């Protein structure tokens, strides 16, 4: 049962004063792809207080995760759930671990467990508790209590079963000063592209906006404390410098919920960040990517950021129809989205975007508006087409609205909804076959993913390697391949919309589409390989000069045969 959560007025003993026994480790389990900063911060705080911490990738076989737990005998295992649709997978893992005798405390954190804690406890009955909101201090306090045999049930920021009843202790305030946290633990080999190492990093936490499909703002608004907190620009640059000097990192991926750019205060922050970067000399050696809203794209600021190493921008454009943007509560117009794209193109800064072709307000007209929008922004072949269907995740205002109107369908692992026009569901199934099953947009073999990777490589070569002869011709070729692929996919989807709205005949043969898809990939890989091979020695020399790690030389076929 949900209970009102009172704010606690007294403070528990500080972390430094608390009694603890650090002889047994803490184990943390979660997705590790591209580094998991959430787990990294938890591990760093625990380690700072004397605990040894073992971070385990959920992608490892369950038997291996079980073996590690048996071997290290932790006092507690913390599970980080970042995608609600994987809760079944976690539930199965926890069940297996309990059956095999792992009897330590099991807890879970993340957006879904924080906002839908009762459901989490019901779906994963092996859990002893759920840690809500930002978990650094709560997990430390919980580890301390368990390590010395004290009761953990009065700790702030947790939820647990008491008999048939779910008890939620007072919510813990969000971390006020992010710079007081240690740097996140990054005990893994960084990924590398073209020999350049990549690392995730954050400059802020929280998002001030209120998009209806997103649970980030509800996560931060439900907890006491300031919603958006930025680190000091100098501290961010210091961490980047340390990672560059000690780990050879040259590509930083900012994973902020919304990079601080919007409005007077954050624009000042961004300018200070640029000043710090320029003072540090890093822009000569490193590049960075960040996520922002389209209405934060400002020509002068972005020119400065580009000079300071910004090489790629992700924008959540989400819709090309005013009605869609209104339903998604983006508080932005189509015109603003178009303007942002125009600015980025005019200053020659690469970008990518998130886009929802279908949302609960969709009609066939809005779908076609969206397709026209995509045609407009991608006409020059600067990027591959990508889109998805909006899904009603837990903790989002749009899910509540769908519940209210009786349109919510599916379950926590496959949230779904009824469209206003039932023919759109058939249309969605039709395009799912094309864009997902046939691998145009989703999946590792998808055209979009591979074209995006090729464009990232171009940006990296342009910024982190000496000028390569023929680069602009290669970019033109890539643009041609991208444009042709985009044209075909958008035509297929548009035609399908008429098949389902007007009963027109479907003229697309799946076998021929698959042939075209293969042709796009073959063209891409051939052109890409040819270019790389032509400049391989120059690229290798640049890496050697910078002391970058170079893999043992062996002739290798590239992705097409992978």
């Amino acid at each position, binding site marked *: 049962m949900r209970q009102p959560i009172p704010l606690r007025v007294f403070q528990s003993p500080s972390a430094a004063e608390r009694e603890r026994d650090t002889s047994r480790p803490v184990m943390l389990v979660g997705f590790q792809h*591209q580094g998991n900063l959430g787990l990294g911060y938890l591990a760093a705080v625990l380690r700072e207080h004397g605990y040894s911490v073992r971070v385990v990738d959920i992608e490892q076989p369950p038997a291996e995760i079980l073996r590690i737990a048996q071997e290290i005998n932790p006092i507690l295992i913390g599970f980080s759930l970042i995608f609600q*649709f994987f809760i079944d997978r976690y539930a199965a893992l926890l069940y297996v671990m309990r059956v095999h005798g792992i009897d330590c405390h099991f807890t879970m954190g993340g957006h879904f467990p924080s906002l839908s804690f009762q459901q989490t406890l019901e779906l994963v009955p092996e859990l002893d508790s759920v840690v809500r909101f930002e978990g650094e201090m709560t997990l430390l306090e919980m580890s301390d209590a368990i390590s010395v045999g004290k009761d953990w049930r009065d700790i702030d920021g947790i939820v647990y079963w008491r008999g048939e009843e779910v008890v939620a202790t007072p919510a813990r305030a969000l971390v006020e000063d992010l710079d007081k946290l240690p740097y996140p633990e990054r005990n893994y080999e960084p990924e590398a592209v073209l020999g350049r190492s990549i690392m995730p990093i954050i400059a802020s936490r929280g998002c001030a906006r209120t998009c209806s499909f997103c649970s980030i703002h509800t996560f931060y608004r439900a907890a006491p404390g300031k919603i958006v907190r930025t680190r000091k620009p100098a501290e961010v640059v210091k961490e980047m410098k340390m990672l560059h000097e000690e780990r050879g990192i040259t590509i930083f991926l900012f994973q902020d919920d919304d990079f601080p750019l919007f409005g007077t205060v954050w624009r000042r922050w961004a300018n200070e960040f640029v000043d710090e970067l320029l003072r540090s000399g890093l822009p000569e050696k490193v590049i960075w990517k960040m996520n922002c809203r389209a209405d934060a794209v400002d020509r002068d600021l972005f020119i400065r950021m580009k000079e300071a190493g910004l090489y790629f921008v992700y924008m959540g454009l989400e819709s090309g129809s005013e009605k869609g943007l209104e339903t998604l509560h983006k508080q932005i117009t189509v015109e603003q989205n178009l303007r942002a794209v125009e600015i980025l193109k005019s200053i020659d800064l690469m970008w990518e975007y998130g886009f929802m072709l279908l949302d609960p307000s969709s009609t066939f007209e809005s779908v076609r508006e969206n397709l026209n929008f995509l045609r407009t922004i991608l006409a020059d072949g600067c990027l591959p087409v990508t889109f998805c269907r909006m899904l009603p995740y837990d903790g989002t205002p749009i899910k509540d609205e769908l519940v209210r109107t009786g349109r919510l369908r599916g379950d926590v692992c496959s949230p779904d909804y009824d469209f206003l026009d039932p023919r759109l569901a058939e249309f969605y199934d039709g395009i799912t076959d094309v864009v997902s099953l046939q691998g145009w947009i989703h999946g590792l073999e998808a055209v979009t993913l591979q074209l995006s990777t090729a464009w990232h490589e171009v940006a990296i070569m342009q910024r982190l390697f000496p000028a390569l002869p023929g680069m602009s011709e290669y970019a033109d070729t890539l643009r041609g391949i991208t444009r042709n692929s985009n044209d075909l996919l958008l035509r297929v989807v548009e035609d399908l919309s008429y098949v389902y709205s007007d009963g027109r005949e479907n003229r697309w043969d799946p076998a021929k589409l698959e042939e075209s898809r293969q042709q796009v990939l073959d063209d891409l890989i051939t052109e890409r390989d040819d270019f790389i091979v032509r400049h391989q020695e120059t690229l290798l020399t640049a890496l050697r000069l910078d002391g970058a790690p170079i*893999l043992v030389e062996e002739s290798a076929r590239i992705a097409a045969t992978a």
Partner: protein
Amino acid sequence: MATKKKGAKAQVAATFIFRKEWVFDEVPPWLRIDRAAWTRIQQLKTQFIKEVNAELAKGQR
């Protein structure tokens, strides 16, 4: 569509292998399988829960 080139495939050094997985985002499981199959799995799951609940109710009587 660009024309497919003929001839020997280029040999790329290990450091420069095309690493498409680094920008890969996890997709929900239902996007990986046939939608009809997914719908069927959901139906079976619902049916299974119904049967288990019926068995449990019988046991409690």
